[in-house]
């Protein structure tokens, strides 16, 4: 199964990278941009039949390694 895990700075956590990207977009003329948060996406290939089990396991992967939950949030999508 294909699983997508998105990891991103938590709301309210200063994200210098997102801030810099937002400023660059505005400089390019995209003045409608009010904010950017920059994160990562992990595309996992996982064996398994049961979608909810795979999703639960991917959540554990995010908690244990993929995200640092002090500063990052995550979401999981089984495709």
């Amino acid at each position, binding site marked *: 199964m294909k699983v997508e895990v998105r990891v991103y*700075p938590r709301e309210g*956590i*200063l*994200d*210098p*990278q997102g801030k*810099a990207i937002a400023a660059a977009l505005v400089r390019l003329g995209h003045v409608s941009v009010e904010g950017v948060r920059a994160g990562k996406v992990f595309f996992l290939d996982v064996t398994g039949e049961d979608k909810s089990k795979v999703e639960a396991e991917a959540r554990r992967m995010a908690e244990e*390694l*993929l995200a*640092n939950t*002090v*500063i990052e949030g995550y979401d999981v999508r089984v495709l």
Partner: protein
Amino acid sequence: MKFSIVVFPGSNCERDCEHVARELLGCETEYVWHAETDLKGADVVIIPGGFAYGDYLRAGALARFSPVMESVGRFAKAGGPVLGICNGFQVLLEAGLLPGAMRVNRGLRYVCRDVHMRVESRDTPFTRLFDEGSVVRMPIGHMEGNYTAPQSTLDELEREGRVIFRYSDESGAITDSGNPNGADRGIAGICNRERNVVGLMPHPDRCSEALLGNDAGLKMFQSAVQTPASR
């Protein structure tokens, strides 16, 4: 007195630490490869700077799963003094031996220069020989040193006197311009509740002899030598 220095693939300051402990202080030293679990009779454990596992995923994130880290965790739990320098500090955060996390520097750049810090607490095995409130100059070299933690954790660190070093100006004033990376409350170094595990972003190992123009860092190693083994 033996310093055991943990070496991950990508560590690059282990020799600096060894030089200080062995050549300058006459202590025994051992390198402990990350795949080993025997700390070789360590009195003090140092996690040196560098780029463990290439900083893949997040700085320190993969190093925490190395076999040696279980031994370091046990050593710390038993009261053994552990010092994490720079990347070593990041490893201790990811391993949960110290609270909080590192963000990328607010300037989005690798910063490599001398900084000033105020010594906030001498009550650790690595800061006993400093005067509280004194100002020390040490070099930094990092991309992710922008320390953060939940407000409640920051308040707890302050309340318990666990902020050990704080970025300052030359006079010891805590100013925004003295803060090289944007760290919350100017935090440069902290300790755990038991005070035996210390992490800091600046490099005492790179400023431990007059020949290099600065020996402010030597006191951290000397402090550890003079601390009676508390285990």
